[in-house]
């Protein structure tokens, strides 16, 4: 079971990239001071739970058990070990069967922490979660692993926007199990932090399950990005679309590891994965490592990757209309990101991303 759920991602020579002595890491701060959960009264009245992990363990152990360790074991990696170290550290969200939330649930993380997140949607439940991660602390790190479990026909939109300060190191693993005819949209923006590891995986476990994954990532200065998505089609008639747009300026570096896995019995699976990389300086570098593991033969699987720099003709065209070189490149770069920004489900978030990129590019 575990072996099947855990993506086989090539490991990085971690210490070299993260410049961390893992053995000396302490949990940065306690849960309470690190984040804010916002549960509107109307949602609470419908039986929605949105609380800290400690509280969930005490008051809703049965519901929590539906999601906790459903797809991520404590010992999957050094970071999952770390995030699991404090059993109370994390958050829990539960949306009962049939409940359709009108407004997004908001989660704000503004200090370094390490912990687990668990999201459980009952059958036919609809929910949107918007997570903003803005920790500024220096000398420290942030580590989150979030498991999601979607019941039949459930719909979850999980959006995460990370704009941490330039010395923070951040590690995210988000993984969802998607039931029959359920839909997951996992959108993440990695804009800040010194180095970021961000993995987003979906296990499409029953017919009709669908996952749409959107990743926007930006690396500047000495930053390093380690991005990965694993789309596991474990049932017939499952669909996934993945769009990744990553740009690096100055000496920003990174890698993207995108994997589509289609099991032998997953007839009619349809998987599209596209990752585009824009390098804005000669020192910038991002490797793209595509992988397809397809055991069925009546499936559609597409993996497209592009790497490029700002096109000379585009730049000249924009400059010939009066835009400075920097303004032209900024505009072209924002244009590069626009297709993935457009996939983020919330207009406020989309505008925020455009603003952030506008000030950070060039």
């Amino acid at each position: 079971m575990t072996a099947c759920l855990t993506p086989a991602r090539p490991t990085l020579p971690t210490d070299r990239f993260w410049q961390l002595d893992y053995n000396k890491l302490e949990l940065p701060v306690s849960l309470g001071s690190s984040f804010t959960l916002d549960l509107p009264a109307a949602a609470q009245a419908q039986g929605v739970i949105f609380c800290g992990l400690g509280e969930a363990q005490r008051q809703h152990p049965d519901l929590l058990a539906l999601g906790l360790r459903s797809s991520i074991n404590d010992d999957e990696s050094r970071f999952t070990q770390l995030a699991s170290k404090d059993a109370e550290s994390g958050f829990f969200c539960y949306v009962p069967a049939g409940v359709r939330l009108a407004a997004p649930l908001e989660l704000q993380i503004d200090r370094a922490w390490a912990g687990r997140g668990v999201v459980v949607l009952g059958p036919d439940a609809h929910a949107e979660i918007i997570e903003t991660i803005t920790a500024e602390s220096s000398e420290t790190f942030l580590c989150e692993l979030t498991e999601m479990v979607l019941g039949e026909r459930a719909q979850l939109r999980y959006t995460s926007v990370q704009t941490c300060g330039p010395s923070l190191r951040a590690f995210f693993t988000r993984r969802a199990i998607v039931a029959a005819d359920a839909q997951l949209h996992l959108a993440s923006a990695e804009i800040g932090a010194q180095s970021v590891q961000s993995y987003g995986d979906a296990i499409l476990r029953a017919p009709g399950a669908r996952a749409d994954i959107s990743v926007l990532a930006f690396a500047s200065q000495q930053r390093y990005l380690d991005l990965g998505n694993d789309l596991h089609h474990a049932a017939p008639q499952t669909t996934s679309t993945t769009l990744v747009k990553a740009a690096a300026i100055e000496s920003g570096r990174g890698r993207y590891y995108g994997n589509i896995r289609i099991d032998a019995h997953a007839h009619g699976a349809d998987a599209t994965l596209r990752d585009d990389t824009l390098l804005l300086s000669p020192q910038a570098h991002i490797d793209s490592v595509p992988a397809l593991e397809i055991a069925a033969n009546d499936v559609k699987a597409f993996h497209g990757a592009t790497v490029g720099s700002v096109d000379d003709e585009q730049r000249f065209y924009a400059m010939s209309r009066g835009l400075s070189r920097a303004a032209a490149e900024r505009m072209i770069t924002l244009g590069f990101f626009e297709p993935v920004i457009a996939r983020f489900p919330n207009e406020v978030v989309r505008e925020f991303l455009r603003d952030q990129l506008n000030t950070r590019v060039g």
Partner: protein
Amino acid sequence: MSDRGLRIQALRSAVAGKEILKGIDLTVEPGRVHALMGPNGSGKSTLAFSLTGHPNYEILGGSATLDGADLLSMPVDQRAKAGLFLSFQYPAAIPGVSVANFLRSAKTAVAPDSMNPTAFRKLVFAKLDVLDMDTAFLGRYLNDGFSGGEKKRLEMLQMAILAPKYAVLDETDSGLDVDALRAVGDSIKAMRAEESGRDTGFLIITHYPRILEHVHADVVHIMMDGRIVTSGGPELAERIEREGYDRLREELVGIAA
């Protein structure tokens, strides 16, 4: 001011190490229309790109000034700010950047405090109307998936909005249907209208005399092999249409011999 005009003198330029322009002399006065014709590969686009500062085109000698200001020493964006506009033969597509966003950015760049957002909107809608373009264009990505004719109309829309002092139109009339051709003619006329106090000078690169039925050309120049070999009135364009370039070439060689 006596130095007004787009003045090109003894301009020589090269692309990929090969000399293409071999000494061009041409002055476009404010409010006047010059047509530039010539066989494929004679250097017409090279002249347009040399004036606008495309990095692939190396200036070997000569000068180009815009109302007295030295164009050739300016960066590309500075030339636009000085009042030069090029309507591209093959405009670049910039996916992800909407037409509306691009127009606003360009207008703000060339005329920083020209107008408030409401006035700008009004201007854009008025110009869309002249060019018979749907407002839906504004939301589309710049030239991305545009048809040939749509691209040309968008070039004209940008010209109308940026209101340059001098505009070089590189085969804007090629591939246009009759209505689009008339719309292009109308937008050119609007930029020379006495009543609006506009006196944009035009250098219209074309293969067809048809555009000149919509816009009266004051002078027609013929370029061959990187040189302007002869200039005349609109009848020169018609003659080329009738006889082709070979007759003219033979005649000129005859004169030279």
